[in-house]
């Protein structure tokens, strides 16, 4: 089972709505640094960075097992257990484990779908496979 946020960079206009919605939902402020999805225009294309829930290297790396996979196949971070070492941030091959300076724990996409609902270009979609 894998549930994840699928991205369609060719449709994305880089308006940043998803980042606003995400950071509002989890940090109560509009701040792209606090969004679990990152949108960066690059060389005429758009780079959309978000966890695809598949490789799970972070789950293996976490020394306190604060990262686990739920029954829907989504990787979740338990803030109460996390000791903020940032090992997971460093092993993530696609830079989708997010962290901002001074933040006590990293954070990541949990495939809640709020951003997908808000995206004006349908460039995001929650997909369930398997």
């Amino acid at each position, binding site marked *: 089972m894998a549930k994840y946020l699928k991205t369609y960079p060719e449709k994305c206009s880089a308006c940043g709505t998803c980042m606003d919605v995400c950071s509002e939902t989890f940090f109560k402020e509009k701040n792209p640094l606090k969004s679990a999805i990152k949108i960066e225009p690059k060389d005429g294309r758009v780079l959309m960075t978000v966890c695809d829930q598949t490789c799970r290297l972070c789950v293996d790396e976490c*020394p306190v*097992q604060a990262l686990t996979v739920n029954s829907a196949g989504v990787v979740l971070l338990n803030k109460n257990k996390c000791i903020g070492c940032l090992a997971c941030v460093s092993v993530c091959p696609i830079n989708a484990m997010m962290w901002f300076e001074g933040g006590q724990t990293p954070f990541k996409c949990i495939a809640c779908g709020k951003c997908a609902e808000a995206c004006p270009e349908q460039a995001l979609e929650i997909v369930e496979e398997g």
Partner: protein
Amino acid sequence: MTQDLNKIKSGHKILKEWSYELKPVDKGYNMRTLYVNISDNTVAEKAVSEEMKMTFTGGKGFGMKLLWDGVKPETKWNDPENEICIATGPIGGNTNYPGSGKSLVVSLSPLTGIPIDSNVGGYFGPYLKFAGFDAMEIQGKADKDVIVYIDGDEGKVQIIEAPYEAVDSHVIGEQIIDLFAKNEEDKINISSVSAGTGSDHAWIGCLNFSMWDKRRQGVRFKQAGRGGIGTVFRNKRIKALVVRFSNLSGVSNNPADIATVQKTGLKLHKEIIALDDQQCRMRKVGTAHLSEIMNEYDLLPTLNYKYGSHKDAPKISSDVFYNEFLSKGKPDGCWYGCTMACAKVAEDFELKTGPYKGQKVLVDGPEYETIGGCGSNVGIFDARDILEINFYCDTYGLDTISFGTMTAFIMECWENGILDKEKTGGLDFTWGNSDSVLELLHQISRGEGFGKIAGKGIREMKNYFEKHFGADRKFMDDIGMEAKGLEYSEYVTKESLAMQGGYGLALKGPQHDEAWLIFMDMVQGLIPTFEDKAEALHYFPMFRTWFGLQGLCKLPWNDIEPADNAQTSEPAKVPEHVQNYVDLFNAITGQHIDKEELILQSERVYNFQRVFNIRMGKGLREHDSIPYRSVGPVTVEEYESRAERYDKQLKEKVGIDPSGMSSEEKVKVMREYREDQYEKLIDAVYERRGWTKNGVPKPEHLKKLGIAFDDVLDVVNKHL
């Protein structure tokens, strides 16, 4: 198990309970230490003054200061006033920068009679600090076995009579978890220190620092190996020290500037993840990768350091351990946040000998030192045997390095007829006889037979063999690889004069943690003159002392290097990482040091420790002498095995034409030359360090460092 536990609990009697006020750590410090006396069951806290903090910094610095105050010049290791001090340092316990969880243990060593310091992983030191204490010192001697329990959640210390717990670490480690953890989730919050039955009888006892391994559902240990602190621990009749702390977070250290701590840590994490596979493969095999490198460069101690390589060495290479024994893909750090993760584990290892025969156990390691000491150095080229020896050394509380090196000495004595079956009580010590080596271990644990003599280490064995067996003292002094009474760690130093000094001048005795200069000196030729070598023997021991002041591990300093390190002006120092340390220290403590002040912090403690050695009667030039086996070929056999190399040196360095000389003559000439070189090196290093020709720190130097206290001057003045 529950039945056992009930029985164990029924034996518990609380001898003392003491409460303290819980306060958060402030910028890496608590500004207080814990004092426990188990003779009269006193528990107290001692304030750390601003002067103590600025002079001794923390970690081993605090340990040395507390020990100095606790003992007298005539104190012996087994006197009640000897102490065991445990401390991490101001950086210790942060969860961001790899290698930040070390505890430093300090005590008067049974082997050397002077202060020993040992650097160890596991959770105890950091938890102790977060429980409220920058260090703990234990003094006194209990009548009956005790546990000292520090509850960092409740603010309470107990001394508990503990008659029924086991002594061997892999057993008591689990018992402690079951006794003190409230539930499954709580196990991770408990850490213990224990020794083993070997420590009851031998002088090479070590301590095991525990960590609960959630993934494997078992206790793992890291060892404070060197110098016999486990022996002191059991002599005091301590079964275990236990600490609880359940509130660990990324800011438990309360750093002045968390963002810099995190950024600096993250930078190193990323470097390790990107480069370790091409560099040292620490994440896969730990320090075991060194065995093949050392073999390749003729540095792997083989048959009591006679040689530096062996045709069978591939059988104990890291690949063999990795493919056949080590578990893979687990984050095996010895403290949280160490992505270097070198603390490797063999799981489900079935024991073939001894009291735990048939049990399937976790073996921590093997570290390179264990492979060298308990493998090649004794002629054992079987990975399984090495793991079995490793396990028993650990659970019995015995240092694998001293055990390996002293067993190599025994085997060479056997080879030379100093020992035979009659003298060993039937054990055959032919090179590579692993059955005898394991039996020796079990004898040490039981305090029986030849194990009783051997367990006291090489220096005592030399005395014993001379007195009881009429053995040739000079030969034993040449081949017995000890200095100051401590056994050598596992590198062949014959071709590196600087490293001979690195060992001979190491304050605690010949351990490589002060300086490892072999490649710089021998392979890269970067420090050709005496002055160059002396500079290296100043800078590196000072720099590396700093890890012990901070609660840091040395490995993430240079067992991983930034991609562009080779292009820097001084690659051997790893300049970017030095800057990381400066940044990290400042970010945690709010101080403003630079890399020069970093060295000064170390120099204070380093010189203090040297004076401490002098105070205890073993800190002068004569005590910095080393066995000739570490300097050059003792025997004709050794000379001839590398004849081409040595003949060339006679010609080029000594200026003598070896043709026509007998091997005996060549050995003699070579020896005169090399011994003279060593003395010249010592002169140069003392000069660089601000010491007299007799190895005594000069008063003006002590003044410059700010450690010219009256009691310090009193010691040096007697030797000027």
